[in-house]
């Protein structure tokens, strides 16, 4: 048994190289001087190349110069980083304000037709963005919101995915607790605020972390609904960088990764717990 465990850990270590290497590549890439990048990996990015790409475990002359260049000489980077925040933060806040109470109803307050309505939410959740963008576009166009940050924020706020995850979190709260609260005279609103919110927090937080990652990551939404580049988030800026700015691209990629990575490191306990919750309660609803 002990021997087996060691073997399993070994296999896991080998497998985890796939994810750790990517992180390593990005961090080291950001510390590598430009001419070294050009010599090692740029052949891959050119149409015709006689050379092959290579890669070194460590840069031969680590430097912070690309980072300094990005932070000091690239104002557009800050604008787009900030644009990304302006799109993602309201979505997270909106999802909390709107999905958290709605999910409570789907989990704990039965009414006629609730199951059918929930099915509608589920179907909307499964539809890919490329399908919902058509109805979204029709409304945004009619409301005159196209090309404004609201065009990305509002459809995101009313996404049904956080409702689903939060409901899963609430489902694990025992009904007896609510019945006891009701006997003590707590109304349905009161039990949502004093029982649902605190006990459903792992589910809520994991939905918000997932929603935040999703919003920060968004490519299609801003690409389709934001015409003017002045509103573009960092995710679109990165896809526009060319080989000539290889060093810059490396650092910018790492900066793009930084916020979700921090969020992940801080919230991973809740995230894992919350993802797990969506399973553990699926049998008693």
């Amino acid at each position, binding site marked *: 048994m002990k021997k087996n465990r060691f073997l399993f850990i070994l296999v896991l270590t080998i497998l985890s190289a796939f994810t750790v290497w990517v992180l390593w590549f990005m961090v080291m890439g950001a510390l590598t001087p430009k001419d070294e990048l050009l010599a090692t990996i740029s052949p891959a990015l050119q149409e015709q190349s006689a050379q092959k790409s290579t890669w070194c475990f460590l840069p031969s002359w680590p430097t912070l110069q690309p980072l300094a260049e990005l932070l000091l000489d690239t104002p557009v980077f800050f604008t787009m980083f900030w644009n990304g925040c302006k799109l993602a933060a309201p979505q997270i806040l909106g999802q909390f304000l709107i999905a958290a109470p709605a999910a409570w109803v789907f989990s704990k307050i039965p009414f006629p037709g609730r199951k059918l309505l929930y099915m509608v939410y589920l179907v909307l959740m499964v539809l890919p963005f490329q399908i919902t963008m058509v109805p979204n576009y029709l409304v945004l166009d009619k409301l005159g919101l196209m090309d404004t940050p609201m065009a990305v924020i509002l459809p995101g706020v009313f996404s049904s995915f956080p409702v689903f995850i939060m409901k899963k979190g609430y489902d694990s709260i025992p009904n007896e607790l609510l019945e006891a609260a009701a006997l003590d005279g707590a109304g349905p609103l009161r039990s949502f605020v004093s029982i649902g919110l605190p006990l459903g927090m792992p589910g809520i937080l994991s939905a918000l972390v997932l929603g935040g990652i999703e919003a920060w990551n968004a490519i299609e939404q801003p690409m389709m609904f934001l015409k003017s580049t002045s509103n573009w988030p960092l995710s679109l800026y990165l896809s526009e960088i060319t080989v000539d700015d290889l060093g810059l691209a490396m650092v910018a990629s790492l900066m793009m990764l930084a916020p979700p990575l921090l969020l992940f490191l801080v919230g991973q306990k809740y995230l894992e717990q919350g*993802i797990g919750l969506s*399973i553990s309660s699926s049998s008693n609803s």
Partner: protein
Amino acid sequence: MRHHIHHVHPRYKKRPWSQNQQTFAAALLLLSPSLVGVILFYLLPFVEVVRRSFTDAMGRRFVGLANYQAVWQNNAFRIATANTVKFVGICIPLLLGTSLALALLIRAAGPKSRPFRSVFLLPMVIPVASMVLLWKVLFAKAGLVNTLLDIANIEPVDFMGTNAAFWVLIATYLWKNSGYDMILWIAGLDRIPVAQYEAASVDGANGWQMFWAITWPGIQPTLALTALLSLINSFKVFREAYLVAGAYPHQSMYLLQHLFNNWFLNLELGRITAAATLVVLVLLAVAGIILMIWRHIKNI
């Protein structure tokens, strides 16, 4: 009123009427912001989408099934549909299998394997835009993977220009989602009572017998939910495909998402509304069938 109360959850049957009314008012209050948004941004405009699928691009003149005919006869639509179905059909079973194996491995490896959960969850956090450069560096003709193949004396592969592109996309999907699904599986596996395994091992069952007799039936509800979330995530590979290979990638990875994207940018509203209606109808039909034959999904 009797008739009305009949439909209400048993928990509320014995309550006085006013309390029921209070509950209903609370439900309305909590649910309506979300409901209004969903109706305004998704449901109502979808009615308009269906209406427009029967009209010309301006949405004025009724053209019958002309849009549907155009979509059906469109070659790109057929290729994209075939690719998307193939992609979903291959990647979801592969992902479910891989992540279940990972979950079993982690559990078997004992408490020391805890950090690996986070390590495997990492790819979910890494933004697509950050990955693009690495993707290109890995899979270009003169890329790192080909350098490796060269060292191993294997012919280089043109990953992005041949049918290999499809498999690169599958690999990306697996890499990105294995950790998330693994966490789901672990939670599902934790729910199976240990006593069942102990009883089976007293009876002399081996690992495989225990898996098929205890684990497999025990994880059915998890399977339903994990498959659903995997499906949702499978549509998101478009980002990787688009950022790396552009709006018109190699034919083997041209997905329905590409098609919708391109039609939308060309403002072909007639076709896109018809195609969207078709896709939703097909999804609803498939969901209905699954719901009928697979009772576990009801718990979702």
